[in-house]
């Protein structure tokens, strides 16, 4: 009844091209932003931030990154964990080397460094396609993790081989290190998430995004109509790795505080983020959010129900979680290959007609 464009007249091209053409969508978006920035920070405590909000925001950034590469440009990557590790170690080296520079710039620079590494490992994608590329990206995953474990320069020769985030602040508010307030963690992740999502949205609906999608749908055909495959694939790798690097940097500096390459950024992380975009929906910004939220909330939920509610041992619950994740992925691929985003789209289509059937 409310969710329709009837009566919402567009009088300029600008109006016609806006991100949310339907009034209710637009309002919902602004309300969500206002609640996230204006209300939630006053109520969050450590548990909510550490268990739900911080991982959700950070994984959403990584999922956006992978979705650009896999969902929009069609290049399957199993090296996300490795690229997150690049972001984490880059931000660590920068934080230690230039303590006087604001951490925001460090995170962005870490993203930039990851983008360069991503382009390097993306170069073979010009020759290698499909499964072959998916397996080839495993090379980056294993090689990068090995590199960070074996070369002491990366972890500043610390005895444990771990990296620890020193205390840094933005405008006098501590955002990294053990003394960070919950709301500060929440806000810095949220700021990055909103920025990244805004970038992703506008990149994907413009010319760059259309080129990516052309390459995804059929690269030879795209090349014939004038898309430069080198540029399209390399920009996809660069932008995607930038996002993933930012996610890795935040994951280490803000969320974990201390990290070890193999443990925090192993192959399971790559799969986790791949699952997020499959369940959420390939080639959809909303899907990246939905998938990240789903994969963060489900373990928390299962743990509360199985361990807290039914008194199962934790390891059994963990195995059960594996089964459910695997089963859900197969289920989604069979029933709705386009993920939660497609369900949302269908709901919206239905809503536009409701309550009148025609």
């Amino acid at each position, binding site marked *: 009844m409310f969710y329709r464009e009837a009566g919402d007249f567009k009088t300029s091209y600008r109006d016609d091209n806006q991100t949310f053409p339907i009034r209710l969508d637009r309002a919902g978006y602004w309300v969500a932003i206002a609640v996230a920035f204006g209300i939630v920070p006053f109520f969050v405590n450590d548990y909510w931030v550490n268990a739900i909000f911080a991982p959700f925001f950070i994984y959403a950034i990584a999922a956006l990154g992978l979705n650009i590469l896999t969902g929009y440009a069609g290049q*399957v990557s199993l090296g996300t964990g490795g690229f997150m590790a690049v972001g984490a170690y880059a931000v660590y080296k920068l934080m230690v080397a230039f303590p006087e520079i604001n951490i925001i710039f460090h995170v962005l620079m870490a993203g930039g460094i990851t983008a360069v590494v991503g382009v390097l490992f993306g170069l*073979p994608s010009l*020759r*290698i*396609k*499909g*499964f*072959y590329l*998916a*397996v*080839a990206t*495993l*090379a980056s995953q*294993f*090689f990068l*993790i*090995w590199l960070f*474990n*074996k*070369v002491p320069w990366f972890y500043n020769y610390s005895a444990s081989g771990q990296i620890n985030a020193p205390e840094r602040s933005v405008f006098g508010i501590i955002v990294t290190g053990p003394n960070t307030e919950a709301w500060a963690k929440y806000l810095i992740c949220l700021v990055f998430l909103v920025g990244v999502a805004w970038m992703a949205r506008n990149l994907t609906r413009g010319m760059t995004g259309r080129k990516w999608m052309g390459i995804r749908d*059929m690269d*030879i*055909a795209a090349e*014939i109509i004038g898309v430069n495959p080198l540029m399209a694939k390399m920009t996809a790798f660069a932008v995607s790795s930038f996002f993933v690097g930012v996610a890795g940097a935040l994951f280490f500096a803000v969320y974990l505080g201390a990290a070890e390459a193999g443990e925090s950024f192993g*192959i399971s992380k790559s*799969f986790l983020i*791949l*699952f997020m975009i*499959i369940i959420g929906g390939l080639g959809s910004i909303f899907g990246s959010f939905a998938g990240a939220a789903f994969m963060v909330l489900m373990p928390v939920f299962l743990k509360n129900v199985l361990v807290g509610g*039914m*008194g*199962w*041992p934790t*390891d*059994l619950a963990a*195995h*059960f*979680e*594996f*089964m*459910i*994740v*695997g*089963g*859900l*992925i*197969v289920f989604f*691929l*069979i029933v709705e*290959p386009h993920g939660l985003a497609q369900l949302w789209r269908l709901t919206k289509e239905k809503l536009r007609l409701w309550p009148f059937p025609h």
Partner: protein
Amino acid sequence: MSEQLLFAAEVTLNGLMAGVLYALVALGFVLIFKASGIFNYAQGVMALFAALTLVGIQQGQVPFSHLINAIFGTNIHHFPWQVPSIIAIILAAGVMVGFAWLVERYILKHLVGQPDIILFMATIGLAYFMEGFGDIMWGSEIKTLDVGLPSGLNETIDTVTYNWFGYGFFIDNLDIVAAVIAALLVAALTIFSQYSKQGRALRAVADDHSAALSVGISLRFIWVLVWSIAGFVALVAGIMWGAKSGVQFSLSLIALKALPVLMLGGFTSIPGAIIGGLIIGVGEQLFEFAIGPLIGGATQNWFAYVLALVFLIFRPQGLFGEKIIERV
């Protein structure tokens, strides 16, 4: 011959033996890929699951005992019997056939005609499911697998080489058995696919799905068949790896190594899987031996992948793969 050279030769031989095991896992991938065009990521977890099932049956474990104990508060673990190895192997093979049927019935049937990448991701989901399922069914602790295969240093080779070169080669009996079994398995598969009716049907499906359908070959039966064979190959690989390093989660990670093997050999070629396995096995051992100490060691973690990556840049279809022809 100098000491170094002899040592390198020993490393090469051991690499060959490790390569045989990679090739065994890779073989399962190739079979399924040829018959159904599905890149079955779950092959490694199938090996793990098969080995877990084998150990479980052999030692008379109660399936799902942890789950049952957690729900009903009972405390059961084992049946009061032990099953002889050979019967346990047959039963485990039966379980893998049943598994193949379930996969066809509940997953593949519904995904016919989807893009390859969707099928690939479905098998990743399947791998996760089986990992959790196997752990819930049989427990997640490390198990020792003993089906009576010989293991330990092979005395004969040690003595003979000592007499020849003045340096005894250390080669594990288990590796030799694995090599022999792998050779037998490949021979059996070749004979099966060349001379039996089902084998010919299988090759027909691999060649052209729709043409095979039109002459009356049941695609679904072939899929169940090929997944069963892959399950059996996984069981053999699981026994070998399990006897070598215990049945545990890392088994499925070793199976990841089969992926570069495949890329090197080509996804569609059985000889490619064998030769790719040998190249990777020898390559990573020699690289670790020659260059590893200079750059910090543990290069086996990534060498196979990087080798395959570099190789693919020059030959995107692998050594023996069919030439990739793209039509617009």
